């Protein structure tokens, strides 16, 4: 019987091209930074958002893992801000509808006050449902929405 000779084992390269992976990650980071910038301008003048994405003790060359972590942190931040902005938009839309209802029927919204902040606008303007002529208006049920003239 002839001797069976085995072919050398097939070598499968598992090494990845790290440079290409870093390029891809950098492109993703650039895209996420653009999205964050868009959100920043859309969020203005609202306050209280957290925009920070921790630095990596730069300026230096970042390794694959650091770029991955940075990409993930940025993606997390974009998602957090988007979620927060969506939530605030809903509240602001509800407040805008409340102003419409207040203006249509001030007596039903006695003493209710809505500020520019509450509708995501700049300035110190506010809408306040108040009685006309003070105590007389209160007794007579004469109510109106007073719109402030802005910042002092």
């Amino acid at each position, binding site marked *: 019987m002839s001797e069976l000779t085995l072919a050398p084992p097939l070598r499968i390269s598992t090494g990845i091209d790290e*440079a290409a992976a*870093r390029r891809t990650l*950098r492109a993703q980071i650039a895209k996420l930074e653009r999205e964050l910038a868009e959100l920043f301008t859309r969020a*203005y003048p609202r306050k209280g958002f957290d925009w920070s994405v921790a630095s*990596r003790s*730069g300026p230096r060359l970042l390794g694959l893992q650091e770029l991955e972590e940075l990409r993930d942190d940025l993606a997390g931040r974009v998602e957090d801000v988007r979620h927060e902005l969506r939530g605030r938009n809903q509240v602001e839309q509800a407040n805008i509808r409340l102003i419409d209802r207040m203006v249509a029927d001030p007596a039903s919204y006695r003493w209710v006050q809505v500020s520019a902040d509450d509708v995501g606008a700049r300035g110190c303007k506010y809408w306040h449902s108040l009685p006309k002529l003070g105590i007389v208006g209160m007794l007579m049920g004469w109510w109106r929405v007073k719109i402030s003239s802005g910042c002092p």
Partner: protein
Amino acid sequence: MNEPGPNVLTGRIAEPAASEFPALKLRYRVLDASTHRSPKYLRKQLKHISNRMVGERAINLRREPIAHAYRVFFRHIGLDPDETPTPVESVLAERLRAGRFASAGILVDALTIAIVESGVALRAFDTQAIEGELWIRVASQGERLGDGRGEPELPDGAIVIADQHKAIAPIFGDPADRALPSRSTSRVALCAIEVAGVPQIASEEALWKCATLIEQTLE
């Protein structure tokens, strides 16, 4: 690739920074300069751009192509641009904080005007601290800025602007003490750091603008 403009030198980008950031360029000019009090016309020009820069520009700045390009590059090199602002954002933040661009001498005023108008990251180093040509490289392990005395150790993989013998400054950040222009400075190397998304024409125009403003004060 276009040839750089007259008097503009292009610094070499050493590996591995060159292959990691193929669009990274260091363009610079060496010229006589002074840090003395700015003449009236320069202060007037500073006041003029001060009036043009309003809060709205600061809000929209990060959507402008060149400012955005620097923010992205800052992320790529491990800096948070909200913590360590890019040069143009830093200048504009100071304008909003102080309510104007306060004059700080010829060199700083010229840099401020050129940075605000172009958005390009410009830096100036005292040539007394520079030996040979400038280039960008990655710092070697345990390296310090300048002659190393009193300077902190650079982090592993730090990207620096260097001369033929030593690191002068991190690519973005405070330079070695000797490279910082001072009252005794008479000649500077004016550098523009070009990154992906910043056209060559913009960095050359920024250098030209800044150099012209400085040279006018010497006439």
